[in-house]
């Protein structure tokens, strides 16, 4: 992509000053549609129970699943609700999965005085051999056994199972299926190379300056300051930058001031204040040159529950004067130049990672797409707003690019669906750890990692390692 175009004039700037330095015009975005409406919350009332989300989720997804089930196991199969089950009859049931996990942190257990338990320390994974799967529908629930991968699945998934009820009251599963990829609108991408840069996990305010130079290099490449002419003209084809969450570092989240006495902490400023100022400056540099979409992440100053609302513009006084700055929700959905983007800042994937045996972020990303829901574990283990009318996390149509931020590594994959859908799956790595960003070419849906580095004293040669 970049390099091939730029190669001819690579060494052009190793020369005495030329008369006319060339300037390139930024490739304009021909169409941009913001589709985050379902994720924007107007009035937020938390007075409702969370059970309603599950109810609407099941209602919305049931028709899809019934269709899939009939497609997979034949149209003659019996579709039954749990209350209609008869022992021994082979049938198909659609319901919500619940995984009862021994190690799942439970607030009730923690505060229970009988047990006198200390709060459980956080673990990477909460799965255990003794976990069980239970299927619930509108009225009843039943335990599942059989050919179903208990470790892999997580609570909140809607699926269809095929099997029969046994005498001991459990359901013996022979096969199961998910909603699979929804329909996809045809992609009307640009005809020339247009790029979108995806970055996540800038991690400002961390107190360690390792990735600061890399961040500056990133900004310089995008704004066309760095590189020889060929590279600059390629960079001019970057039409958009999406910052996928965790703009602030986790260390800005420290809340020791809460525990300290007021007189000690009166004059101290929260760490996030300085970090946000730095963010504002970086965004200003970017905004003067390219449209930027800023998604909030786990450590950013916005609400905790999904869907996270956009950062408030008052925090970014310098950058928000530019109309190229767009503060958007997490998850984020938009149509850029005819290509449908959908992505999150990674909380959904990392939550599934904790409660499932799947280890690879790309695998989990793909799995959520197959299941038809962005974040099945919400609201069980991931904070979520108590929706009741509809569940906005269900895939209504298949995106062309589906990404998640703050992954440990970069990976990308072109997934081909059953009905001819083509989705580019991208896991955007955490920039503060890997100094790598992702460049997506909208023309042919390809993705390339871009990594930046400086040099430091402890390197023997160059800087070839991925992350420093």
């Amino acid at each position, binding site marked *: *992509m*970049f*390099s*091939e175009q*730029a190669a001819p004039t*690579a*060494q052009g*700037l*190793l020369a*005495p*000053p*030329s008369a006319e*330095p*060339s*300037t*390139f*015009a*930024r490739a*304009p*975005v021909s169409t941009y549609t913001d589709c985050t409406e379902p994720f924007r919350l*107007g009035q937020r009332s938390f007075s409702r129970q969370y059970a309603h989300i599950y109810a609407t989720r099941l209602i919305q997804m049931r028709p899809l699943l019934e269709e899939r089930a009939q497609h997979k196991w034949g149209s003659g199969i019996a579709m039954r609700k749990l209350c209609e089950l008869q022992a021994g009859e082979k049938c198909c049931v659609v319901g919500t999965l619940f995984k009862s996990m021994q190690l799942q942190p439970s607030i009730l257990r923690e505060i229970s005085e009988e047990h006198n338990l200390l709060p459980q320390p956080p673990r990477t994974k909460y799965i255990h051999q003794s976990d069980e799967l239970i299927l619930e529908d509108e009225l009843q629930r039943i335990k599942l056994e059989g050919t179903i991968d208990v470790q892999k699945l997580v609570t909140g998934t809607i699926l269809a199972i095929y099997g029969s009820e046994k005498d001991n009251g459990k359901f013996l599963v022979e096969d199961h299926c998910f909603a699979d990829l929804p329909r996809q609108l045809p992609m009307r991408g640009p005809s020339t190379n247009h790029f979108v840069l995806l970055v996540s996990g800038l991690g400002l305010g961390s107190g360690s300056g390792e990735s*600061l*130079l890399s961040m500056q290099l990133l900004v310089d490449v995008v*704004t*066309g*300051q*760095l*590189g*020889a002419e*060929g*590279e*600059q003209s390629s*960079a001019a084809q970057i039409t958009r930058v999406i910052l996928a969450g965790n703009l602030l570092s986790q260390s800005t989240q420290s809340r020791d001031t809460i525990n300290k006495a007021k007189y000690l902490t009166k004059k101290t400023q929260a760490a996030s204040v300085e970090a946000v100022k730095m963010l504002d*400056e970086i965004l*200003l*540099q970017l905004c*003067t*040159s*390219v*449209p930027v979409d800023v998604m909030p992440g786990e450590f950013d100053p916005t609400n905790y529950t999904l869907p996270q609302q956009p950062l408030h*513009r*008052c925090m970014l006084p310098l950058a928000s*004067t*530019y*109309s*190229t700055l767009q503060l958007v929700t997490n998850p984020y959905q938009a149509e850029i130049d005819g290509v449908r983007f959908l992505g999150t800042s990674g909380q959904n994937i990392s939550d599934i990672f904790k409660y499932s045996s799947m280890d690879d972020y790309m695998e989990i990303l793909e799995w959520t797409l197959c299941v038809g829901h962005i974040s099945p574990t919400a609201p069980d283990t991931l904070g979520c707003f108590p929706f009741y009318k509809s569940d906005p996390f269900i895939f209504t149509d298949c995106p062309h690019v589906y990404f998640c931020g703050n992954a440990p590594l970069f990976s990308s994959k072109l997934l081909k669906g059953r009905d001819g859908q083509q989705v580019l799956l991208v896991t955007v790595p955490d920039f503060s750890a890997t100094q790598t960003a992702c*460049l997506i070419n909208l023309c042919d849906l390809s993705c*390339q*990692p*871009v*990594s*930046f*580095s*400086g*040099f*430091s004293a402890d390197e023997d*040669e*160059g*800087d070839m390692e*991925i992350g420093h």
Partner: protein
Amino acid sequence: MQCFLCVFILQVTYKWLSYTLGVHVNQAKQMLYDYVERKRKESSGAQLHVTYLVAGNLVQNGYICHKVAVVREDKLEAMKSKLATIASVHVYSIQKALLKDSGPLYNTDYDIIKTNLQNCSKFSAIHCAAAVPRTLAEVSQAHTSAQIDSQTPNDMQVASVPVTNGQVPSTAKQASQQPKGIMGMFAAKSSSKSQDTHKETKPESKETIGVSTASSKPPAKGNTMSNFFGKAAMNKLKASSESEQAKEEREVTKPSVPAAEPKLLPTTTVEKPGKKTEPVKIQKKDRKRAKRVDLSDNEEEKEAENLKKKRRRIKQPQSDSSDNEDGPASSISQEDRAPTPSPEPPPKAGLEPASTEVKASTGGKKRKRRRVLKSKTSLDDEGCMVTEKVFESESCTDSEEEFTKAKPASLHRQSTAPVKKDPKEDRRGPKKGAATASKANKQVSIMGFFQKK
């Protein structure tokens, strides 16, 4: 170019050079290269250390990664050989000392960017047509719509405009300009009746004028105030203007604007928008605003009544020295209780506070809410100099009056009349007419009550 390196610096990066000389970044890079070449040819002995930027394709983890790296000169060839395709090579920086790590490069760049934040893309090779700063009008519209969405109008938000207020805000200026205007007026004036009224109006106006009010107000206010005073407005003030002032002050505090309003004041137009903001403010200040709304209902009567009420409000806090907040509230309620149609002399409200008080009319128009700690020196009727530190809080002159009254009140507490009665009596006192103006201006005291009775 050479002088830079010799004179200052430990290091010159291409970006630093570009901003300092005002040249395109590519030219800066070429200049650096040129300099290095020449210096090396001269072999003058001065050792120059150069870092380069190398970019290109590299296979990493099964992906073709586009790598962008800053390398020292000695590692340049090694890096180039690692890259499958080289996209660009250019000089990144020159320094006198060998750099151990790239931290200082970042610092140099950071500093130069910080000083040039507003035009950070000026010398870059890419120009984006879409990146234009929003005009203030667009910003305000965006804020307005955001405000409607959020349902909580933020009074203190700098750029936000209350929906009711159609003016483009430049709120940051308002606060500063208003005091300037007010202070200017006050500085020019010596204490006098009108001044007293001004004082009263001023705190009122200041309080009612919140940060979010239209920007046009402060500049206008300052001008009009000074105009007002300069043009012998004093006369007007003393005579009929008092009522008008009070009226204006009232207006500031009341949501609806009586039609009669400030004929005198050139800031009439400004005031009206100010009034409009009143409803917005009302949401915020429940108690006071509500009361003011009530007051506004009676508005018609009312210049006199306004004056009277105002005076009452001013006087009442005298007795309630303790409670700043409750003062205005109770004073307002008391005012409600005893409205009298008789035109009142300007609200002396015993507010001697010489200094900073309201400039009559203009003060009234702008409803700014502000908390300002001021020191007011006044001469009370016993000839004692009373200095009080007054915290002018949101609502108009209320808090200010309270404070100022509180002090003088304490002096008069010796008299047997119950403190609580003072406000009422004081109120009635000022009502009595212009004749009592001078007394009222000085100090609301129990003596006023006795005199009238």
